[in-house]
């Protein structure tokens, strides 16, 4: 029988995968992919909990997370476009003029 914990562990693992992606990605576009993974991980947890508690709040949360993800993509890509126009690259190693 699949327990809530199983879904939550899946969610946790996916979140970790997202986190690893965030950590190791140097290409900003692909880094954004990783953040999507993290949000999806949370979605799974919400949906699973919602299912097991028979409560709709979790699905609501997941729904809004999707909305947030969509908005973030719009803004993030906007920023990437501006950056790309200026620098011609999306490598975040080139993005270190401010430090110290």
């Amino acid at each position, binding site marked *: 029988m699949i327990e809530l914990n199983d879904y939550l562990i899946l969610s946790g693992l996916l979140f970790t995968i997202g986190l690893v992606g965030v950590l190791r990605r140097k290409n900003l576009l692909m880094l954004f992919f990783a953040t999507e993974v993290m949000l999806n991980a949370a*979605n799974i*947890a919400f949906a699973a909990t919602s299912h097991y508690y028979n409560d709709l709040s979790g699905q609501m949360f997941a729904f809004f997370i999707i909305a947030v993800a969509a908005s973030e993509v719009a803004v993030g890509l906007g920023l990437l476009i501006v950056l790309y126009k200026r620098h011609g690259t999306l490598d975040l190693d080139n993005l270190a003029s401010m430090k110290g």
Partner: protein
Amino acid sequence: MFEPINISFTSLNMITLAPMLIAIAGGLIILVIDLIKAELHKSLYVMLTILILFIDFGSVLGLNLNERGFFDVMLIDGIAIVSQLLILAASMLFIPLALTSKRFHEYSYPEFFALFLFMIAGFQFMVATDNLILIFVGIETASLSLYTLIALHNRNNSYEAAIKYFTMGALSAGLYAMGSAVVYALTGSVELYQIADILQSRMAEPGIMIAILGGSVLLLSAFAFKLSLFPFHTWAPDVYEGASAPLAGYMSVVPKIAAFVVAMRIFGMYIDLGIEWVRIAILVLAVTTMTLANIMALVQEDVKRMLAYSSISHAGFVMAALALDTTKGNTGIFLYYGLFMFTNLGAFTMLWISRHKNRVFHERYDHPYEKFAGLIKIMPMAAVIMALFMLSLAGVPPFSVFWGKIYIMSAAIDAGYVWLAIIMGLNSAIAAYYYLKLIVYMFLMKPEENDGTVTYNLTKPLITIVGIAVAATIGSVFIMQPLISYIYYMVSASGY
């Protein structure tokens, strides 16, 4: 099938939504005006924004205390009102900084002002609810606007800042979502008051503590990012440096207030539940933050970047008050930011006034210390005023930040954390050095080649803003009593 749901309109208590709706409507109005007639001068939008915020402010004042609205999603308690008032006041004070004598990119967009208003609406939603979903959406609305506003300054550094902020913000959003998921899994609710009740009943269950703490850690990490606590603070200096001075100053106050309100709701709940671990974790984060940010600020070459570190340090200072979870400590948070706001406004306005379009004094920095060398000779008034703000930030009485500082230190002592008060004191001493450094440059150094450029950006509105900041910074002792009694009443009325 199913019956239509009947809900009486009055039970929705729509008035609780009024402030946010005013801000959103204002944003839309600005967008519409732009559609109807383009190329209008920024002063129009600035004034419109102020007026909208003014109405907003009025509507917040008109709210009744401790009401819920809209299916209990909206929560208008004391801290919601106080924080909204602070947010709106700060916004009204910062937005006139758009009226510079030189043209800067962002202010040529009417959308800038619309986004600004949407951002404020986002903050207002954040603070006026205890629903994790609305908090999340509010945070994101505000943050996404803020990222854009930063980028709109349209310089390489501002993109860099925006992207850094955005990326880390996305990670933080993930953490928040995940944390909420864990909390939801534990309690089956996304509303804090219910979460508190259910957690209370489940506290004793074996093996559950790790999940409770895990959830709190995820949320703490998310808010540590927002509040720029070590080691989640790394974005702050770069973002402040990349953003324009008004926005940097704004960022060091308003998002922090909003985040503190939410943090107060969430972590206050944990601490009230008797989970000491959260308190200790916050204290450790707060102490490391104020200390490390201070020592990093010591070695900065740029005033704005120094102020960025300093505001991190101030945030750590206030975070420590949050960990106390006493009414006095929570009062102190608002009091501190209320007072800090004016000084910070003044300091960043002075930077903004002295801002050049291109970097004259340093290849990287806009406001290197050298720029202010010998200011007392060139512009005595400007130097004195700037020194005033620096002294205030350093916590020299009778300037505004001092009063906040002693109130929070007193709260720490009342809560039995004398060591914390001492650390706060020592940190203030370290901090004094870098504020002093600017004073030393201004008063004790010989002027560099400097053709009166310190007032490069000066206009009457900016003078007015500086004047307000000076008056509030110096006269803060006289507004302390009403502030304290009002905030204390509000905070204690909301049960914090």
